[in-house]
């Protein structure tokens, strides 16, 4: 189809959007994984107030539709004096939203760890941050790997919502291309293909990493 020829001719637009999507996903994924890991501490805390607050945050993010959340951060917050540019608002939204999900899945993984190996940590004199970082966190990450992979795919898909606030990611650039050159089919098919490729790569990498992780579970 000649449509695809047109898209190929202007492929740098699509690729530019794809590149931005990858940057957004990388930043949000890394950030939400780190924040989620830290979030497990209050989620598993014996302190009921701390645990309650963290759980409330997680439960809220599970009920909040991401699109409305993005809108709120970008269009609504300026009334309170908080003005973000669209990239910042988008990434902050992704971070706040996905840290909750990462935190919850890592917490579930922590709760499933055999109690004895954590007890052994206590018995050998580990406590506090050292216990968390060296004894608890690595097994949690290894056993949660498949779920982390799923969440990464979710982040890729959520990144597309940022088109609504005019962030120049893949979907936005594909829309731009199709309105300029009247090639909607080829344009969006190209975008869908690139999303598919990204997610399949993530799945493959996680599958590969899983083999490494299984020995260490």
């Amino acid at each position: 189809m000649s449509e695809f020829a047109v898209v190929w001719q202007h492929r740098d637009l699509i690729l530019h959007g794809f590149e931005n999507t990858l940057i957004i996903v990388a930043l949000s994924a890394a950030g939400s994984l780190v924040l989620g890991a830290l979030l497990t501490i209050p989620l598993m805390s014996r302190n009921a107030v701390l645990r309650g607050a963290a759980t409330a945050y997680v439960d809220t993010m599970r009920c909040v539709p991401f699109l409305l959340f993005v809108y709120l951060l970008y269009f609504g917050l300026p009334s309170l004096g908080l003005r973000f540019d669209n990239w910042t608002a988008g990434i902050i939204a992704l971070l706040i939203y996905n840290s909750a999900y990462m935190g919850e899945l890592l917490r579930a993984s922590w709760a499933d760890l055999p109690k004895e190996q954590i007890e052994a940590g206590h018995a050998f004199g580990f406590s506090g941050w050292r216990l968390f970082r060296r004894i608890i966190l690595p097994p949690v990450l290894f056993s949660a790997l498949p779920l982390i992979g799923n969440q990464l795919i979710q982040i890729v898909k959520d990144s597309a919502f940022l088109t609504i606030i005019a962030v120049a990611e893949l979907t936005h650039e594909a829309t731009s291309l199709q309105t300029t050159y009247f090639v909607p089919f080829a344009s969006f098919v190209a975008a869908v293909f690139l999303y598919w490729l990204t997610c399949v790569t993530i799945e493959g990498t996680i599958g590969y990493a899983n083999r490494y992780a299984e020995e260490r579970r």
Partner: protein
Amino acid sequence: MTFHDYLSIAHGALATVSISLVSIALGVPLGLGLALIRWSRLPILNPLAAAYVSVIRTCPSVTLALLIFFALPEIGVSLDPVPAGILTLTLSTAAFNTEIWRGALMNFPREQYEAALSFGMRRGVRFRRIVLPQIVHSSLPALVNEMTLLIKSSPAVAVLGIVEITRAAIRVGARTYEPLPPFVFALVLYSLIVFLFVKTQRIVERRYAQAEALA
């Protein structure tokens, strides 16, 4: 914000939920059909179904909505925004449902199937009375979970210009020059709706877990 403003946002929420419910009603059986195609390994259709599931599961709702609305007219299928939105959500949820149904079919105890065969049951009866009730039972928690996720992601169809909750909130904000209150109201209202679904889901899960424990 006037009472009318609240009402229009609530009306928008209703529109979004209605679209979601229609998509759920269509997507659950569609997922079952595709799962059966995959399970019985029909030639040509099986790899097509597999490709469909793989592509749509990794496709953002927004992009899919735009593809359906803007690209389908090229092959002659010109849809209004609302049907396009329903189609988007249906195709999306059906892809996830396919995997859920497929899991239930693959975990179906072989012996029960063989028992049905040995009693001379023919395929239609076998499926309707033995297989289907049980896979419905074992799939239900996951299906309800997917329904909740669909409700949550359905504001994506706002990109098609449908007047639903997102658009309603934008309109109110544009009129009053105070975007924060309508967005907060929309967010809270819709989150409550999702919360109700999540609560229902928990009840369903608990009841099914109890049934499993007793079984």
